[in-house]
């Protein structure tokens, strides 16, 4: 009768009889009649759809997402990257897909060994000792890292870079406001150097300094700045938390070796679909000495009673189902399926493949940035800063105008920064990955060039000088 329910009417009848009941409805006699009667629905149809009808309905909805026919330069924390076919072959195996949390190691060695390999791979990328089995996403990883730093240092202030992903900052704010135990100060690395930071916040109550590298604008933190941040944290007993895109760590020196105590980020770029924002997964890595304060599941390698190497969830006494209100976190999930995809992706790529993906993306970004910033009225927002595969471009007019122009030529040209940073109304954030072909890059340059040209032809000198003035507010 209904798609996925196995009982026949006769089965139900036999079961009811076997229980000595006269009717199934007796099983609901414990629910007050006032609740059971007169249940109505506003939106749901009484009848379900057949599988064929479902397929048609879903296909129709999916095709209304017409973005697929555009070449995309959207980034901002989620990246359209190449996913090897083998990733989904493995991830769609029922044995992984429909398994429960591996609380019973005897029948969960597959999931457990995958997570152990994932933890090892993340430790390798970040240059730290231990990684957990993941948390919800990059934003939750940053937030959990901040709470962890507060537990370790017993301090209550967080210094957060303004170029940490705006959504990550928003989530951090939501959590700290609810907890009412931590306060947040932000600093703008485009406006002040790390050395200035030290003078601005001489407080001793700092739990953590949180930066993103490469940051939301694509910019990298120089090695000298890492040194200064490390010194600042050491002088105040604070921890240094760095949020990093994991693909970029294929080529960048691991933040753990540049002084970070906790490195976090989102594993979406490692073989996970964009899927309109999720599910993704947050990774967290730290030093051995902070292990007991690291939240989330951990898988350890050990031996069974027959001396067979095996894997099991471990250090569970930190978790909520044991510690209840005293747990390190209320999180009782990890993004196991996303972790699986990331692990298979990293295994397929290997160290050289991941380095090549990162390098190719950066070559494309630098090629594009160099071509675009030669155009009149166009320049990099932070020309003195090094960047990876994403960059912010100052335009002579609002970024929305540019994006509309490019969309007419089937290009999603990037993100307008004004939604996140009102002080940069004429700024476009552009990301390139290995997926953006040489042809797409060339087409982008051509179409963008026509926009700049049209703008220069149709606008008065007054407006142009206004745009120049806006540019002066950017760092020199």
């Amino acid at each position, binding site marked *: 009768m209904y798609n996925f329910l196995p009982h026949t009417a006769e089965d139900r009848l036999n079961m009811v009889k076997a229980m000595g009941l006269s009717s199934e409805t007796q099983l609901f006699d414990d629910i007050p009649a006032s609740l059971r009667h007169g249940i109505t629905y506003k939106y749901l149809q009484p009848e379900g759809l057949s599988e064929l009808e479902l397929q048609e309905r879903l296909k129709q909805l999916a095709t209304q997402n017409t973005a697929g026919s555009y070449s995309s330069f959207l980034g901002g924390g989620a990246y359209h990257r190449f996913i090897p076919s083998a990733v989904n072959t493995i991830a769609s195996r029922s044995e992984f897909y429909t*398994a429960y949390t591996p609380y019973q190691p005897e029948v969960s060695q597959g999931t457990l060994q995958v997570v152990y390999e994932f933890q090892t791979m993340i430790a390798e990328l970040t240059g730290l000792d231990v990684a957990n089995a993941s948390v919800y996403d990059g934003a939750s990883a940053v937030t959990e890292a901040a709470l962890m730093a507060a537990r370790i240092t017993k301090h209550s202030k967080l210094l957060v870079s303004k170029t940490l992903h705006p959504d990550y900052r928003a989530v951090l704010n939501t959590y700290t406001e609810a907890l009412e135990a931590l306060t947040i100060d932000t600093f703008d690395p485009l406006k002040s150097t790390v050395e200035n930071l030290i003078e601005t916040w001489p407080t001793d109550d700092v739990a953590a300094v949180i930066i993103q590298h490469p940051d939301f604008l694509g910019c990298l933190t120089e090695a000298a700045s890492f040194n200064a941040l490390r010194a600042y944290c050491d002088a105040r007993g604070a921890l240094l938390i760095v949020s990093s895109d994991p693909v970029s760590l294929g080529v960048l020196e691991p933040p753990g070796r540049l002084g970070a105590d906790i490195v976090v980020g989102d594993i979406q770029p490692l073989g996970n679909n964009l899927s309109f924002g999720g599910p993704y997964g947050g990774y967290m890595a730290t030093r051995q000495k902070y292990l007991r304060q690291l939240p989330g599941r951990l898988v350890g*390698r050990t031996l069974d009673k027959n001396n067979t190497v095996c894997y099991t969830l471990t250090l569970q006494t930190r978790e909520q189902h044991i510690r209840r209100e005293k747990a390190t976190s209320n999180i009782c999930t990890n993004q196991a399926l996303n972790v699986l995809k990331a692990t298979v992706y990293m295994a397929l790529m*290997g160290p050289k493949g991941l380095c090549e993906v990162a390098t190719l993306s950066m070559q494309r970004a630098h090629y594009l940035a160099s071509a675009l910033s030669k155009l009149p009225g166009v320049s990099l927002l932070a020309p003195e800063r090094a960047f990876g595969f994403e960059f912010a471009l100052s335009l002579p007019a609002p970024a929305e105008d540019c994006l509309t122009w490019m969309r007419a030529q089937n290009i999603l040209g990037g993100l307008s920064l004004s939604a996140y940073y009102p002080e940069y109304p004429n700024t476009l954030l552009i990301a390139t990955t290995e997926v953006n072909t040489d042809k797409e890059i060339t087409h982008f340059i051509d179409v963008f060039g026509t926009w700049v040209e049209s703008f220069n032809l149709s606008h008065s000198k007054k407006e142009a000088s206004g745009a120049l003035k806006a540019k002066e507010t950017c760092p020199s």
Partner: protein
Amino acid sequence: MTAKVLETPIFEKSNPGARGVSLPVFGLDSTGLNRISDFLPEGLTRKNLSRLPELAQLDTIRHYVRLSQLNHCIDTGFYPLGSCTMKFNPKVCDLYGQLDGFTQLHPLTPESLSQGALEVMYRLQQYLADVSGFDRVTLQPAAGAQGELVGMMMVKAYFKKHQQPERTQVLIPDAAHGTNPASAAMCGFEVIELKSNREGGVDLDELKQKLSPKTAALMLTNPNTLGLFERDILEITRLVHDAGGLMYYDGANLNAVMGQAKPALMGFDVMHINTHKTFATPHGGGGPGSGPVAVNNKLAPFLPKPYADFDGSQYFLNNDLPDSIGKVKAFWGNFEMMARAFTYISAYGSEGLARVSQDAVLNANYLKEKLKTMYHVPYDLTCKHEFVMTSQRQKVTDPHINTMAIVKRLMDFGIHPPTVYFPLIVAECIMIEPTDTESKETLDRFIEVMSEIDRECRETPDVILNAPHTTPIGKVDEVAAARNPDLNYFSAAKAD
């Protein structure tokens, strides 16, 4: 003695120079871009490549396919796992929730180009409001525990807005899920435990005694973790509201009551829903989940932002919520899970969902009636979607036998152990939830297996005590594993 290895860690299979996939090369004018040092400053590039493994593609595939074969999963066997609702994940939901139009969609795509995804969100919000009886829904929380947290954050915001900062206590029954107190504590609430009555339900006298002007909320799951519907639910919600508190519904057990009773009409103000339980999105070996939160109009102003909305011609993300608690997740939530849950609900319709709950309850009562002849059932009342029993009788035949030993033996019969030692108020607890998607044949076989295990407890207790015997590995000393944790292949040797 050399330890046996089931599947060598992938790092030991590495063959330097081997490649799993090929990548394109940069084909434009690469002047000034040939070397990494041409575009990255000194000191920021890797001094050494990472030690990710290097394997041919087939070797990688074999490694992970063989690992998959070490797992128990729904598609191979039964999971009578109380409070987890391990039901069949319909393939149409998985396949059609992963159409390219969904999976290739960047979260920051202009709204005019993502109308299909926004419509899925908008309609799912409506469907969940319909099922729960609430006014508004957010799909943002990434999992049930985050849904709980969001619910409690909204409770907190509500009392802040209504200038009642003295409401700092959250009442939670001793039988509650462990996430309840953890989520309340993360919002800075003081957790006050409520002792259950003899029937495992809320003790009204205890409740009256603990309610005070400091009460912010009572967190409750109904049916409770013993699988029993709170007969006094209307009285409980009235008492809490009269004391000025709010009612939080833990939706983990929603699979029992769809089409039978709506949580909002029981008197609750806010609830979370686990789509990976009730609406059959896959557990994936431990995640991803998805934990939408439904609220009545009292709490609606505090919902996370944005939510999916419709202006009569276009679907869009609405950020107009001045009293919102803010964002709890980057972007909009676990969209792929939403698409699957939307498909699942569309497959059933409201009558089908009511049938789902009826079958879930029928299956649980059928098992309880059959098993209670062999196993001690402490609350022999009509249950909802799950029930608890214990190993008390089996323990008597051999004092070494306990719940853990009994359920480990189930694995030799291809059945996943039930949830055990939970809820904490029942000693040697075994919590069984068959779900709606198991056939009578599967249930009857489970009864036979449990009967066989009962016989073994009396006749061959060693078989029970040494179980499991046929799984890829035997029992693991988890205490030893935690004493000296080896969490990273490369640093295992130097772990402290």
